[in-house]
């Protein structure tokens, strides 16, 4: 492979995670560069969500190191809150704040962290609401929105922090089938703007079309890491072959 000049955002070295005596991640080493759109697939319980959640330290690694933009974020004394501003996260269950309006959901963090003034944050939120196609929902509460709409708002909320990379934890798994498309469409547009994205997903079609990289995690390690075309049409690892034969 020719020398890749793009900035390394995440440099993960021998990442491990155990819950009590359950060894979920068994040494993951990889890098994510600026502009990578990585789809992570694997059987349930393989550790792919744990891996993603470790990347912004929602799970604390029990071994190995994670370097973000050159800084070891697993070292003691690191300002985790400052690091997390750079890493957006979209959850399976959306996790919008039900007691706040859509506008307040999006402006809360930028305003409270003194990144933007109230007025700037509102302007930005309205711009982002336009982008996710829900400008008329600004003053609604999350409970008034459909699942697909809530997830689009959750994406806008993460984008309001202007992250360098966005993590998606099965963003369409909790949605009714007819709403999956609208969320994937927003993510596709986001990918086209050059956003670095790491996506745990079961949407193989999306992974194949939109991702620049497909990763198979099984038994707590990366078993295959390829360009999607190769990954889906010519899988090498036998477990991946079995997995794809079940889901495709």
């Amino acid at each position, binding site marked *: 492979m020719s020398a890749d000049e793009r900035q390394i955002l995440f440099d993960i070295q021998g990442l491990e995670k155990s819950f009590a005596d359950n060894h979920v991640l068994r040494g993951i080493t990889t890098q994510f560069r600026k502009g990578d759109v990585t789809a992570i697939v694997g059987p349930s319980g393989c550790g792919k969500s744990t891996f993603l959640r470790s990347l912004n330290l929602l799970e604390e690694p029990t071994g190995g190191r994670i370097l973000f933009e050159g800084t070891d974020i697993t070292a003691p004394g690191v300002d985790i809150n400052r690091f*997390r501003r750079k*890493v957006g996260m979209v959850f399976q269950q959306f*996790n919008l*704040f039900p*007691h706040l*309006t859509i506008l307040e959901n999006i402006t809360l*963090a930028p305003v409270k*962290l003194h990144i933007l003034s109230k007025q700037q944050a509102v302007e930005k939120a309205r711009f982002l609401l336009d982008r996710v196609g829900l400008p008329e929902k600004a003053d609604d*509460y999350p409970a008034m929105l459909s699942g697909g709409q809530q997830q689009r708002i959750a994406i806008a909320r993460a984008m309001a922090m202007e992250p360098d990379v966005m993590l998606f934890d099965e963003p369409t798994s909790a949605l009714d089938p007819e709403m999956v498309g609208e969320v994937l469409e927003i993510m596709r547009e986001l990918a086209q703007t050059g956003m670095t994205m790491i996506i745990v997903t079961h949407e193989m079609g999306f992974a194949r079309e939109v991702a620049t990289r497909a990763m198979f995690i099984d038994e707590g390690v990366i078993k295959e890491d390829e360009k999607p075309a190769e990954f889906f049409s010519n899988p090498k690892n036998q477990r991946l072959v079995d997995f794809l034969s079940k889901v495709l």
Partner: protein
Amino acid sequence: MSLSLTERLKLNFLEQDRWKYMVRGLGTTLLITVVAAAIGILLGFVIAVIRSTYDKTGHLKILNAVCKVYLTVIRGTPTTVQLMIVYFIIFSSVNKPLLSAFIAFGLNSAAYVAEIVRSGIMSINPGQMEAGRSLGLSYRASMWYIIIPQAFKNVLPALTNEFIVLLKETSICMAISLKDLTYGSTLISSQTYDYFLPLIMTALIYLVFVMLLTWLFGILERRLRSNERR
């Protein structure tokens, strides 16, 4: 000799301005309730946050242990005894019944508020905290802006209950000779030898204020719930 109802009303409440015992007593009762409720909410929230932080993250171990001892002692002993300990032992050298009542009822209420609020905090989906943290908000900021407002809304009915109990329980102030509403009515009885009217009147006044409290909290609850409508 039996008096008519009008005469008894006159005797108990109008003669020698005896109604003033009730009004002054009511003022004291309400003052104690409000101050104790304020202490209870403030201290109760702090304890609840300490306890739930320990439950969720394992941090604040020592503070949590202190809180647990506090809750055990307060909830395990009668309020009357606590009130008398504060007045007759802790403040024995100074005669401060009102201050004693503030402190005793405040500390007592805090223990109950703490457990109510803690149950509210624990009932909020962990995803809410994760969403806050993933945006770069600190644990404290996420607690304050995201978790507490939702928890407060959920526990409002239980808090209403606690404050109703508090209002009524202040009637044990007689134990430290503090002239609250109940004591006021017995002062009238001791002068008129009539227990019926002063006590019925006292009961009615408590009832009216409990209903008022319930109504006010009901309004607050409806306002906070308005964003759940679809």
